[in-house]
């Protein structure tokens, strides 16, 4: 049942053949390191051992790219050596910001921050891209299932209270003839992914309350599925430890051949044969996971176990290997509960069968644990013991089939040195349509309607309605708000402790289109957008933490890695400027597609998702984005610049441009802080951030969500530079801007409060359905009704 892998005598070509054919995704340097290690032991590794090493050393589990040394060069600048993107840009930002309310960052399965006297919050966002490309329903469902287990595996276990999800798909109207070989149609992926997330979240009784859906042709072969979960954990259950003698106990589902090689598979590029990789597919069972949560939270409250982790990528190998890293562990694979016979020992060890957790149980607590599990109808199996040998020892039917030193397993990986280059791209620029012939009759009504109907901006109600966002009873601001409950909320607000007025805000920011101009600006804009969304519903920068999720192309290629360096650097610069620490993150690299017949290679747009979580002292200060009362004033807060590179306005006219929104965190921080204070003092009736489609789209959304028209003039817009063009004023996507609604009685107080911050009155809410905008010269440039705008927005 156990094979010896002949590597001692292998030459380099043979080593690479073993790696490739075994789907190990190990580089030559890594194979040579393994060869040298076993050379000193004077024996070959078993399949169990080499699989364990491949899993532990996979990009997915150890994040080599973010830890390795990078030699970075950029036109006109001296080459630079970066000793780890993670420690240089992400971790350092958090250390320097040093928020006292950060309880645990980057060390556990999720980040932990303080909530109230009794509880802390945990937050984690994961990706499940490769599995969702192959089997959308199962892949997305197990993505959400996996991130819920991350919360459950943090500290001694958090109760899942909220799911978030962000998807990136190919264009829904892609013709079948243009579909890359071996890939599923974007529509099919879309439907399957949404159904997978829906069925898992709803069936577990967890609200899915925040998210986004983006479209770009380059996601066709590599869709992105980000799944996040927030959990609530008692403050005295946030630490874990393992003692020698503790039992290794598996809780939950049985082990089958599901998802073998998931960790190594996700560290490789997809090609047109990937569709046939049946064994990597995982199928979820939310009912099973709900039972595990119920059983484990009882066991946690009775202190029955000392440590817990989830079985994600790499299965038992990863879970037991990590838990026993400091001390050692021995396991007996024949004791594992199997779905069916015939699994080889390495398959049992590596299987990524879903809905399994591993806990470390002191032997005296075993009976009580087993009683709870029996009562909840959850299978629990003792299959090993934590030891003090500093070794990971794997037995099958009494024979040792794997025996690895923890030191080599966890610290033996040779870190590569990688090269990165960044060259700013040049795109054709688009001129304002305000100049030239026929300008006097120019109207932007159609542009506005076209923007509202474009897939990235249009209403996602048909998706959001499939998710339960009311379950658990704490939702304060739903994803859909307004007079008819169908306007796009900036962020969700929930009260996890019913009866308390303390709330949690969850928001996100993502802007891959700016990556086409500069990934630095894309990352900066993602942070700014996530924070704007938090502030818009009543949150503060002071109490906000961030998560980063990088989805990138192949980092072994210097240009892709150069983009990653740019984005990571922005994370440091902007997070420190705003004082918002990163508490957790994840990366999914190698999102590329290779056509094996044509050799064509295509990467996704460099995509950074920033998720924000904010603790709100009093949910009664929360505001929504829909306008409330005719006669109220609409103000713009924050300067507008002529920044349309990567904007949706350029996009609908077929341009990318070169001037993506710059980031001015000094200005932005001051604006957000002052606005937060105004909202928390009750002077703001509604607030919406300006993002995709700029002021034009934001104003339209506020108006039709509230059911009232608006009468606006662009000369009220504060600008950071001279802008004459009405279309640029209307559709520029500059950062750190908001639209707010102020009652006449608060106008003076509000204006005094905002002194020193760029702001201007744009117009008023009207008591008709007319939506009109006058340009700088006073000419009518948009003339339509909120009903026309709303139906354009909903026609997706």
């Amino acid at each position: 049942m156990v094979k010896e892998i002949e590597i001692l005598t292998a030459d380099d070509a043979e080593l690479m053949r073993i790696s490739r054919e075994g789907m190990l995704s190990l580089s030559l340097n890594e194979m040579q390191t393994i060869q040298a290690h076993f050379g000193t032991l004077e024996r070959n590794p078993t399949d169990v051992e080499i699989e364990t090493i491949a899993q532990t050393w996979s990009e997915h589990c150890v994040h080599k790219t973010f830890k390795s040394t990078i030699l970075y060069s950029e036109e006109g600048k001296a080459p630079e050596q970066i000793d780890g993107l993670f420690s240089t840009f992400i971790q350092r930002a958090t250390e320097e910001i040093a928020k006292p309310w950060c309880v645990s960052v980057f060390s556990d399965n999720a980040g932990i921050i303080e909530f109230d006297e009794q509880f802390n919050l945990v937050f984690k966002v994961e990706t499940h891209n490769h599995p969702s490309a192959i089997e959308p329903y199962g892949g997305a469902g197990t993505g959400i299932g996996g991130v819920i287990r991350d919360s459950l595996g943090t500290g001694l276990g958090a109760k899942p209270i909220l799911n978030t999800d962000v998807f990136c798909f190919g264009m829904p109207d892609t013709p079948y003839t243009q579909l890359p070989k071996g890939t599923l149609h974007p529509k099919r992926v879309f439907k399957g992914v949404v159904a997978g997330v829906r069925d898992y979240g709803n069936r577990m009784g967890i609200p899915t309350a925040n998210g986004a859906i983006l479209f770009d042709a380059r996601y066709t072969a590599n869709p992105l599925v980000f799944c996040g979960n927030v959990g609530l954990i008692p403050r005295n259950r946030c630490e874990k430890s393992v003692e020698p003698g503790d039992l290794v106990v598996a809780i939950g589902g049985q082990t089958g051949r599901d998802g073998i090689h998931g960790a190594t598979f996700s560290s490789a590029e997809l090609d047109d044969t990937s569709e046939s990789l049946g064994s990597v597919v995982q199928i979820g069972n939310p009912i099973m996971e709900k039972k595990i949560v119920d059983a484990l939270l009882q066991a946690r409250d009775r202190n029955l176990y000392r440590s817990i982790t989830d079985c994600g990528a790499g299965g038992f190998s990863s879970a037991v290997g990590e838990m026993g890293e400091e001390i050692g562990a021995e396991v007996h694979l024949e004791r594992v509960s199997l779905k069916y016979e015939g699994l080889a020992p390495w398959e049992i060890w590596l299987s990524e069968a879903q809905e399994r957790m591993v806990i470390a149980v002191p032997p005296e607590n075993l009976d009580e644990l087993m009683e709870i599990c029996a009562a909840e109808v959850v299978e629990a199996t003792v299959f090993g013991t934590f030891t003090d040998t500093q070794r990971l020892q794997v037995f099958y039917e009494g024979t040792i089939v794997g025996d690895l030193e923890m030191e080599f397993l966890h610290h033996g990986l040779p870190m590569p040195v990688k090269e990165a280059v960044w060259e700013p791209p040049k795109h054709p620029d688009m001129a304002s349509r305000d100049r030239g012939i026929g300008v006097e009759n120019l109207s932007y009504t159609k542009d506005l309607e076209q923007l509202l109907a474009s897939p990235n901006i249009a209403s996602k109600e048909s998706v959001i309605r499939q998710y339960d966002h009311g379950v658990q009873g704490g939702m304060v601001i739903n994803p859909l708000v307004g007079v008819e409950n169908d306007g796009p909320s900036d962020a969700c607000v929930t009260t996890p402790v019913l009866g308390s007025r303390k709330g949690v805000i969850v928001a996100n920011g993502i802007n891959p289109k700016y990556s086409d101009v500069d990934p630095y600006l894309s990352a900066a804009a993602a942070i700014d957008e996530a924070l704007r969304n938090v502030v818009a519903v009543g949150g503060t920068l002071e109490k906000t933490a961030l998560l980063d999720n990088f989805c990138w192309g192949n980092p072994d290629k210097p240009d892709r890695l150069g983009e990653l360096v740019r984005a990571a650097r922005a994370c440091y610069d902007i997070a420190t400027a705003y004082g918002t620490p990163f508490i957790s993150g994840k990366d999914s690299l190698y999102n590329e597609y290779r056509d094996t017949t044509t050799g064509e290679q295509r990467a996704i747009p460099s995509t950074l998702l920033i998720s924000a979580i904010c603790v709100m002292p009093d949910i009664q200060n929360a505001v929504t984005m829909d306008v409330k009362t005719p006669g109220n004033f609409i103000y713009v807060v924050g300067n507008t610049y002529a920044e349309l590179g990567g904007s949706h306005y350029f996009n609908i006219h077929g341009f990318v441009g070169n001037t993506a929104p710059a980031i001015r965190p000094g200005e932005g921080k001051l604006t957000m802080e002052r606005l937060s204070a105004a909202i928390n003092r009750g002077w703001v009736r509604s607030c919406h951030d300006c993002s995709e489609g700029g002021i034009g789209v934001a104003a339209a959304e506020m108006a039709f969500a509230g059911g009232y028209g608006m009468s606006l003039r662009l000369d009220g817009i504060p600008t950071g530079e001279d802008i004459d063009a009405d279309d640029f004023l209307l559709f520029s996507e500059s950062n750190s801007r908001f639209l707010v609604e102020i009652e006449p009685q608060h106008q003076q107080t509000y204006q005094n409060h905002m002194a020193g911050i760029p702001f201007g009155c744009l117009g008023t809410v009207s008591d008709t359905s007319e939506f009109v905008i006058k340009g700088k010269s006073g000419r009518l440039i948009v003339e339509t009704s909120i009903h026309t705008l709303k139906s354009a927005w909903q026609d997706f």
Partner: protein
Amino acid sequence: MKNWKVEVYYKPEVPDTVGQGILEDITDLGINGIDAVRTATVYWIEGSFEAETMDRIGTELLADPITQAYAFGTDNDTDTDWTLEVQFKPGVTDAVGDSTVKGITDLGIAGVTAVRTGNKYWFTGTLNTEVLETIAQRLLMNEVIQTFSYQAPKP
């Protein structure tokens, strides 16, 4: 030990919204000529019980008595429709099947050893095998985890 095959489908007077959605998706593919699609969930139940017990399982567990009907022992096919059946490949986790085992046991019925689930579709209209395979592969099944089989109308 007996193998039962149970089809659970909407009563004729109840709109089959799943089927209607599939029909729209088929039109989206650029395929015309199909007039209606009906759907059913199929349960392959392995257990040592008789027809009366199967009736109880059908009534109390598998079919919604208001909107759905069930059939076992015979297929609910017509002579004029194309039929397509999709099922999981062996070894693929079937969460609904596992829950059904528990559901049957919870009814106090002993002797169920395994349940696998799948889907069945009836197509009314003009169709040929090539088109049916396209519909199956693009919309209704994923070859990574499922297999399908189909039958043409009786001549």
